[in-house]
């Protein structure tokens, strides 16, 4: 992905930026107020408008190789479920399914590039950028907060940077992507559930940040 193509994409977004509303745009103050620094601290914020392209194709076909070349990284598999290339994160979702996540506005450029290399191979590429928003939960207590409602084993021995998982947090399906060891987690959540999940996280955080 070149910097030029990403910049070109952003211009189209800028033109309509004043019309956009993210699912949690109205909650920024509450998310900030519910966050706390310190050795037991935890922070919550929305990262709105991330580009998200759902890619499905045969993982061992020629198209997969072309996609990997175009992205500049192999498509991740179940063991190392996230690869990072430039500003893009490629998340493994299933044996023939990935989510390419990038900065706001990059979806059209990435889509165009991938569609070209896909060619006539059977597969699908679906822009889901508006389908989900992203909550970022970070800080020393972030794992404990998630453990209030996530039955996944999040201990560093079992899950860490470079891992993602589709699972549930308080009954809400999320894509969980750990981005650093502090720890910092991204919770990619369908827009309709975002408000509930944010409320739930704030409530769970209130135990660590009285």
């Amino acid at each position, binding site marked *: 992905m070149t910097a030029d193509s990403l910049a070109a994409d952003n211009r189209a977004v800028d033109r309509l930026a004043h019309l956009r509303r993210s699912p949690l745009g109205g909650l920024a103050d509450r998310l900030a107020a519910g966050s706390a620094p310190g050795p037991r601290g935890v922070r919550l914020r929305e990262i709105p408008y991330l580009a998200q392209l759902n890619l499905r194709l045969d993982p061992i076909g020629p198209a997969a190789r072309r996609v990997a070349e175009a992205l500049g990284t192999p498509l991740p598999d179940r063991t190392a479920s996230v690869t990072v290339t430039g500003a893009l994160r490629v998340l493994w979702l299933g044996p023939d399914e990935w989510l390419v996540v990038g900065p706001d506005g990059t979806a059209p450029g990435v889509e165009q590039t991938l569609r070209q290399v896909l060619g006539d191979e059977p597969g699908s590429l679906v822009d889901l950028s508006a389908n989900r928003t992203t909550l970022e939960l970070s800080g020393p207590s972030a794992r404990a907060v998630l453990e209030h409602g996530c039955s996944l084993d999040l201990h560093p021995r079992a899950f860490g940077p470079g891992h993602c998982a589709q*699972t549930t947090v308080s009954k809400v399906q999320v894509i969980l992507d750990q981005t650093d060891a502090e720890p910092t987690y991204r919770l990619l959540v369908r827009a309709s559930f975002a408000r509930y999940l944010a409320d739930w996280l704030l409530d769970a955080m209130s135990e660590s940040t009285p």
Partner: protein
Amino acid sequence: MLLIACPWCGERDETEYHYGGQAHVAHPADPAALTDAEWGEYLFVRANPKGDFAERWLHSAGCRRWFNVVRHTVTHDITAVYPAGQARPDAHTEVTA
């Protein structure tokens, strides 16, 4: 709360899955060629063994893949997990919890 090992995502709680009933009940290739009794058998009749049972599960909150599980209907011990489309493994190897 069963712990089921999705062939793709690994061990997850039962609540991430949907149950899909008996495995290896193929949709008849030519339903029109079946008698009413045969079609009724396909629609409504399933095994209900006391013991090992091959059944389908969908990892609905995860990778959305259907797969098969051999589960003991009394002890809930799961002795095999294998992708959809594969034959039921004959050898039942012990799986420790």
